[in-house]
């Protein structure tokens, strides 16, 4: 039925309303049109097709009710939702300048990273440049990448310092996992005990307010070439 509808739609409707029913030469977007959203199987669309809306430029089409139902089935085959996932395949994001990206890398990244060391082959590890871009912006997010843990130092006395992986912290409690794998929780009263958090991603966070979008795109253009 959808296939029959697609054929009839293609011949009669597509020019004005678009092959995806989202509007074309003069015809409005049908998918979000009130009549289409309320229609079940052609009962509302039918009269518009069969009688036309001549004053608004919509001619009438002498179609049978069965043909109308086929067209309705085709139009209703498009998913309707505010979050439109049907068009999530982006064009390539590689628009930057590789040379400028390499120069930027040397200034801002090379104190921690090396294209021949820890990042060797990074361009080959990612098939999607967008995932690579997300990963250097903030490793461990949706782009992937491994991140060293956030650690914390709790100073109990003048010389008693306890270190470990940060589990959680709020204004009243800090919990860490120590080197033996034991979770330890300390009550906090203001700055007692003194708590210091070591955030391995801090340099990445600090850069967020520094780079321009052009810097980011240049870096991506460079990093995809680091094989």
């Amino acid at each position, binding site marked *: 039925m959808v296939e029959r509808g697609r054929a009839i739609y293609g011949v009669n409707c597509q020019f004005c309303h678009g092959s995806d029913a*989202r509007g074309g030469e003069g015809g409005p977007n049908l998918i979000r049109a009130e009549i289409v959203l309320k229609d079940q199987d052609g009962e509302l669309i039918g009269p518009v097709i069969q009688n036309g809306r001549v004053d608004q430029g919509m001619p009438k089409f002498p179609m049978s009710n069965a043909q109308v139902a086929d067209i309705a089935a085709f139009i209703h085959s498009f998913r309707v939702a505010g979050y439109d996932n049907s068009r999530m*395949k982006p064009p*390539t994001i590689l628009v930057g300048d590789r040379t400028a990206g390499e120069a930027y890398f040397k200034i801002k990244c090379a104190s921690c990273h090396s294209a021949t060391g820890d990042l060797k082959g990074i361009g080959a590890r990612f098939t999607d440049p967008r995932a690579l871009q997300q990963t250097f*912006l903030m490793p461990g997010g949706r782009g992937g990448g491994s991140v060293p843990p956030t650690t914390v130092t709790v100073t109990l006395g003048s010389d008693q310092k306890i270190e470990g992986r940060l589990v959680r912290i709020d204004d009243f409690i800090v919990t860490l996992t120590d080197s033996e794998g034991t979770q330890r929780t300390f009550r906090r009263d203001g700055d007692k005990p003194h708590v210091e*958090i070591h955030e391995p991603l801090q340099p990445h966070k600090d850069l*967020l307010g520094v780079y321009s979008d052009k810097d980011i795109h240049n870096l991506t253009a460079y990093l995809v070439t680091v094989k």
Partner: protein
Amino acid sequence: MKNLLASFYAFATIAMAQGPLDPSLLTKPLSDSWPTYSGDYSGRRYSSLTQINQSNVKNLTLGWVSRVSNGPSSFGRGGAPTITGGVATTDSSEAGGGGGTSIRASILEVNGILYFSTPDNAWAMDARDGHQLWHYYWRTRGGTHIGNRGLGMWGNWLYMETPDDYLVCLDAKTGKERWHKEIADFNLQYFSTMAPIVIGNHILVGTGDDLDEPGFLQSFDPETGDLQWKWYSVPTKKDDPAFATWGDLDTAKHGGGNVWIPGAYDPETHLYIVGTGNPSPAYMDSPGRKGDNLYTCSIVAINVDTGKIAWHYQTSPHDTHDWDSTETPILIDGQFNGKPRKMVLHASRNGYYFTLDRITGEHLVTSKYSDTVNWAKGLNKDGQPMRDPEKDSTVPGALVSPNNGGATNWPPPAYSPDTGLFYVPTNDSYAMYYLTETDPRGAMGLGGKDELSVGSLGAYLTAIDYKTGKIAWRHRYPGTGGNLGNGILTTAGKLLFAGDLSGNLVAYDPANGNILWHTRLGNVSNAPETYLLDGHQYILIAAGDTLYTFTLY
């Protein structure tokens, strides 16, 4: 006056038992009861109660705990009867309905009874010990079940919006349904979450929509549920003055601007002052959206008697990031430039704070309250942030602050006349905005882009001086993540209550943010409230499916 006083005392003597809401409570400063979404019409969430105060808050202790569960069955739920309504023939919420009960609503406290809601569910509960009196369950047709912001009350009747677009009127005494009315077209992808606001004989109702349908605010008759007026937030005709701010009428009529969080009300001017949502399509600068796109992302003043707009101020002209301006505006009387002035205070999701004149809508102050916000090229002569088109969603990606969730969002802010400060939860966040739809006809609704979070540089409880827009103090939540708090209460006991990001309910000194008391509940899910009953003040808070009160003995 004598008659008024007499009726007030008569009311006071029967106030010990369950009974109708005295409408005069709504225009008085917030005190013993909590009869509407924000406590009173001003939106300040400032209670005049002082029994719990800075000197004794450290002795605050548990009053009671009460847990509820969504769904059609009353089995194992404290014996309160469940009354089922709804128009669906099959129950589409049955599968997951009981699992994720999360109370994110404002809770009414009237004559010793609490009334509250989650999507499809409403409860009445004894405010003294938390035992359930009744539970109402609406069998849904579906729709977005993102939340329900609370109930409205008029006399002995309660009003609830359902996700599948009905306004349901319930008997407050029994939970039995009186009527239900369809308030928006379910097929057009509308869904309804707002707490109805009762003003005189008007029930004000808003709806949401994530497709390209127009936003509106409606007023219904409290007795019959008949429509009194309907105000559209986008132009529906070419002779609408707002049409000049759009590229073409078809886009304007599909332009969004939904009204999904309650506003505040000024009884002197009869103006209901409310924020509107984003234009649609949300992320596309399509030709049809050429212009400022009124009245999306705006603070608007609507006359409740006529449904006509009196003034507007747009906080995000031509928004391209789905940054609604829906946070409840706060109405205050105060000094400005040495003169008394009636004002509106509002923090938008886009990272900017505004002080306006509430009689005329005249702009007084704009400030940026999030350090990281980077999407605007400065302010225009009217104090509006000017969008930088380079920070729209782009194919190679634009690094933008805030993220789509916003520098703040809908959770209730508060104001204290003791400090002159406006309080709001904030987040300094970044995201990459990628354009995925390059079709010049544009995407629909929230489609056409992919937003990938990059992280937060810090989340805060922020106090802003309304006279200057400057941050007076802010408390940074420890840790390296970022999120947004769920709303704020201030009291004349010189206290500020708010949930933090780690599941603690915390009392702060509103003058400086110093912490005075806390307790860990695990998951604070709404804004704290307070009421006074039998001579005792209670602090009321929801944590997921559980209500807690705290009091002094």
